């Protein structure tokens, strides 16, 4: 694993001051401050990761750093930095400090590729990264030292194309195996969808032992993104891989996992078969549907709750204070009738975002 430390692309003095002032705001105003971390493609094609302010009527970039390729999974590290994983088949992991612009980047060993997300353990002592082992094509989770990404251990995901994971209260891991056969040599091209095998698995984080595995009846629905609601229900955002365009267009975008089984949520309209991100927010689940141009909303028990139009909506950032969503040229704070629209630049945001407080 090659390690390098890049020259920090420090945010400008004015930006630092703005960020500092925002952090110093009294509680009443700080509650309205909405800052998120997201990745995007700039107009000149450069891939960037940055800190955005959504407090006003426009999305403002406070600080950013250039990336070698597009990012995908983003997470806040226990030390307050941002950790990012390259989009699949990804070759780098990166740590970025929005405060001082410091960057550390490592390149993966040649026998592995990143396939989506990363997550610290509950105690923050290790970092899990979701990967594919090139020799076998099988999904693996690397257990890494969050300080320098060195691999400490390795767990099987009991499937292929693993994408996102959650850590449960008991320390076990819940992993979405997307199930789509691909090869790193051919990018994200689907190889043989007849072999598709998506599943949600629960693993013992100590040894990778399979504690449970669940599948949907429709084997052409890829289980990709996960979010847990306050009551423990896990929402699973889906991506359709059916051969027929009409079937893909009307495919479901949300499944719910209650700890015992997976079931599809009600869906009142066609959403173009592609869930880009998922968040648990305002007592329910939100799945971004960029190809349908908006945010699909459900109650916590899977009843359809509505659709918020937002062009190319994808990255969602949610916490107890609410949700923010990024689209193309537009963004919004909040949901439904209470949503506040914002203007965004012409950059193309990637799938995911993090609340940054």
């Amino acid at each position: 694993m090659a390690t390098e430390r890049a020259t920090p692309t420090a945010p400008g003095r004015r930006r630092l001051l703005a960020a500092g002032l925002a952090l110093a705001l009294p509680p009443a105003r700080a509650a309205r401050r909405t800052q998120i971390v997201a990745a995007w493609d700039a107009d000149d094609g450069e891939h960037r990761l940055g800190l955005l302010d959504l407090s006003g009527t426009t999305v403002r970039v406070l600080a950013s750093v250039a990336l070698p390729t597009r990012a995908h999974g983003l997470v806040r590290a226990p030390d307050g930095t941002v950790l990012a994983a390259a989009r699949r088949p990804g070759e780098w992991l990166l740590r970025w400090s929005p405060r001082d612009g410091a960057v550390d980047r490592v390149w993966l060993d040649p026998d592995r590729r990143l396939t989506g997300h990363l997550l610290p353990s509950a105690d923050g002592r290790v970092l899990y990264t979701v990967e594919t082992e090139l020799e076998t094509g099988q999904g693996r989770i690397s257990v890494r030292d969050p300080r320098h990404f060195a691999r400490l251990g390795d767990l099987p995901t009991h499937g292929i194309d693993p994408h996102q994971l959650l850590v449960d209260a008991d320390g076990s891991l819940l992993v979405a195996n997307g199930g789509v056969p691909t090869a790193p040599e051919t990018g994200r091209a689907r190889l043989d969808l007849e072999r598709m095998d998506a599943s949600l698995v629960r693993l013992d984080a100590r040894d990778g032992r399979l504690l449970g595995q669940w599948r949907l009846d429709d084997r052409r629905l890829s289980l990709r993104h996960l979010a847990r609601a306050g009551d423990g229900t896990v929402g699973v955002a889906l991506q359709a891989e059916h051969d027929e365009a009409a079937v893909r267009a009307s495919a479901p975008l949300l499944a719910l996992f209650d700890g015992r089984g997976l079931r599809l949520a009600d869906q009142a309209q066609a959403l173009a078969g592609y869930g880009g991100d998922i968040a648990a927010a305002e007592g329910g689940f939100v799945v971004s549907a960029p190809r349908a141009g908006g945010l699909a909303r459900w109650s916590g028990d899977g009843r359809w709750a509505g659709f918020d139009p937002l062009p190319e909506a994808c990255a969602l950032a949610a916490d107890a204070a609410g949700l923010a969503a990024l689209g193309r040229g537009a963004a919004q704070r909040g949901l439904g009738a209470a949503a506040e629209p914002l203007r965004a630049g012409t950059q193309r945001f990637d799938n995911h975002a993090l609340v940054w407080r």
Partner: protein
Amino acid sequence: MSRRRVALGFALALCGSGVAAQSAWRSVAVPFYQPGDIVQGQRAHWYLPRAQDLARSATALEQAVQARCAGAPAAASRAAWRDLRLAWLRLATVPVGPLLERRSARRIDFAPARPARVARAIEQAPVGEAAMERVGSAAKGFDALRGLLAPAALEPAACAYAVEVAADLQREAQALAAAFAEGPDGDEAQLAAWAEAVNQWVGGLEQLRVQGFERGGAGADEIAARWAALRTLAVSDAVVAPEAGAGLVPLETVLRGKGLNPLADWLVAEVRTVGLRLDAARRGGAAAQRAASRALAALARRVEAEVAPALDVRLGFTDADGD
């Protein structure tokens, strides 16, 4: 169009000449190419000759390593390794067909090699094809052999293992040359091969950008070899387009055959710009390297956004979709 003309155009393409691409298209009609014509042209006029070059270079390397173990100077074996490496990059920068089916890159291009695995393999002293099959990729292939040939003086055991690694490379090169002599058969297979060719061209461009300028470590000659392959498969230096099935049909020519001359002109101009940026990066510093990386990214972006849809090809490498 005569075979001689096809040969002339191909030679110019290999030289990377600055001749205006497909300059006769305004006065001489460019054929409409079926996917089978394009794939057959690529296989017969690009991949097969490159695979045969690879096999010849691999045989030369095997002989050079044997000679080294018999006391010849180190420089010859290192030069033979370099020749083989460049032949590999010319063939495998845009990996299609047998390169993917055989997973050749994984077999012989694992980098960086793992010194501990190489040391263990030297101890185990494998001999012959079956024994080398049991040696992991991290202990054989290009990078392992580069390391084995690096010392001024080789221990006999290391030298014997280097000969086996060179022979392993030669077997893979020979297998590729044999496999590229056969093309995909039938409309469906040819259509899939055409889509694969466009996908892999974009992927090869991205790999050049990442390995050459983002990750670093690729030398100037490796970057040049990768770019020569990408350029040859993208734009034509032939004055007149080949008849269907009679020559290499680059992306530019396919576009012209569809009447998409403005897009073809853009592709030619953009490829020329990238070539200039790469030349500048070879001579210049960090700013020139960033400019080269950006030029490669810009080319990939527009090929994804405009060229691939115009060719009715769905990309798996595209940056334009989500994940």
